[in-house]
């Protein structure tokens, strides 16, 4: 096994971690004895083949799924022991799919991100107003404020959902496949935005499908297969042809991404196509 060891994990600071997690839907066990910690202020990307348990792990970290055994800790406390609104002020989640309420405007949807900061008699403070304006500016949806969300393109809509999660103003933000259903330019747009958010000091955790995009954007990569973490660390240290073959069952060559210097996976061709004369 050439998998890289979990690099430096006992020493690094981590507000969000899971210990001895057994994760299951009803009776179907997806993962057993998972130990994971998300490095603070990292852009962590969880990656792996279909059905490897990556989204399940993210959902457990976001307290959407209760582990059968083990516990998720946030700032040293078991996450389910903290008041749910309190957790929502520290940790945000962009679910894989959410339902757009009929006829809602962009500004109204983004404003819903302020819910954890509001009370029955404090429905719209100055801080709410500021956070929403800031979130809409960061995601470049300010101009769309009065538009109906249903009428937007997929890329715009994903930016609006991201704005809602941003308005929540949580230091940790989890994203479950934020680029699914988007074309390539919108994928890059969303990931660039996530990188910007990471640079402002947020801890970002995303589940992604595309290994090359993961290598480009992640500062910390968690590679999963069959419900287990196979490798984690910086993409440059972790991603080798051996690992890709072992995890994805794909023979490949790894070159340097000419734009970023990060690993770029080039799958081995089964047959060579001759260039037209």
């Amino acid at each position, binding site marked *: 096994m050439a998998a890289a060891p979990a690099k430096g994990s006992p020493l690094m600071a981590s507000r969000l971690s899971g210990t001895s997690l057994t994760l299951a839907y009803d009776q179907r066990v997806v993962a057993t004895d998972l130990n994971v910690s998300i490095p603070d202020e990292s852009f962590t990307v969880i990656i792996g083949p279909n059905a490897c348990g990556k989204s399940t792990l993210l959902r457990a970290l976001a307290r959407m799924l209760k582990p059968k055994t083990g516990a998720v800790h946030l700032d040293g406390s078991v996450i389910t022991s903290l008041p749910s609104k309190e957790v*929502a*002020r520290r940790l945000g*989640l962009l679910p*894989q799919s959410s*339902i757009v*309420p009929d006829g809602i405007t962009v500004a109204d949807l983004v404003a819903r991100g302020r819910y954890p900061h509001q009370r029955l008699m404090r429905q719209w403070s100055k801080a709410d107003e500021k956070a929403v304006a800031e979130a809409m500016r960061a995601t470049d949806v300010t101009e769309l404020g009065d538009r109906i969300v249903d009428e937007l393109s997929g890329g715009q809509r994903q930016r609006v959902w991201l704005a809602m999660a941003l308005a929540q103003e949580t230091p940790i933000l989890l994203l479950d496949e934020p680029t699914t259903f988007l074309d390539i330019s919108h994928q890059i747009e969303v990931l660039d935005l996530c990188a910007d958010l990471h640079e402002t000091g947020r801890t970002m955790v995303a589940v992604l499908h595309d290994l090359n995009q993961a290598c480009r954007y992640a500062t910390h990569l968690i590679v999963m297969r069959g419900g287990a973490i196979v490798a984690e660390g910086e993409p440059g240290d972790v991603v080798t042809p051996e690992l890709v073959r072992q995890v994805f069952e794909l023979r490949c060559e790894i070159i340097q991404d000419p734009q970023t210097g990060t690993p770029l996976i080039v799958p081995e061709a089964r047959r060579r196509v001759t260039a037209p004369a």
Partner: protein
Amino acid sequence: MTIRVGSWSVRLAPRALITGAALLVLACAVSVAALATGEYTVPVPDIVAAVLGQGPPVAELIVGKLRAPRVVTGLLVGAAFGLSGAIFQSLTRNPLGSPDFIGFTAGASTGGIIAVVAGGSAMTIAGGALAGCVVTAVLVYALAYRGGVQGYRLVLVGIGANALLLAVNSYLLTRANINDAATAGAWLTGSLSGRGWDHALPVALALAVLLPMCAYVSRPMRMIEMGDDAAKAMGIKVEAVRAVAIAAGVLLSGVATAAAGPVIFVALAAPQLARRLTRSPGVTMGASALTGAVLLTAADLAAQRLLAPTQLPVGVLTAAIGGTYLVLLLRKERH
């Protein structure tokens, strides 16, 4: 629009406020018309005097004993149906999730018919209806439950239960003796005729308790409409909110059916009408209650006067008026 006092702030939508006010005015207008007109016309000043207990004896008898209880029952039952419809349409994220589609009203009818056949008084029939509604709701919820309840499962199981209960109701009617069948049949069409203060009181009490509960859960319910995960991520205890909402919704449709019989369509149409009138995203509780009240009293007024002296069952008119208006509104929408 935001109102701020110190660290307190309340957010209000102007259009929703104006719509609410308009619906209130409309409810008053319909009520006055219902109190004033009929075989014996009571002038408006006499109505006011009668309400204050200083009117001519005839006016006091007609307004106080005959017409006012009917109008008040209509307003309360309409509000209860509207609210109940809003709750279930929000929970199931589906207009067909109304209590009159997912078996709750049919279950209440079954309870009512059994009470009639057992020779019960008006009070027993009401009790039977409420019990039938609650039992049906518990069964539908339990059958749809799979570590939480998905909206579409609740609707599908409910539609199945509805079909089954309607068959049971028909069977019970064929087995009943002719007098009981006639009594049950009249009750089953949904009617406000002959309703007294003893019909209005239970609905009033239920609304007094459940209305604040609904107001309290309406904000988290709007968040749950975006999906369970999205709501949980915002710190909402989804299953707890849902349990409170379901309890309130079941009791509201139960007491409403107990008072007026299974009046169809109000619970379906009122929230849809209210949403389009207020143009607010998602289901609106207050506006749905007001719309339900207006819809039912207006339908009852029409049922009494349209073909007078022939009296139509109010259920026929709620479907006709609400349905027509809803179709018109839907046609105006772009898609």
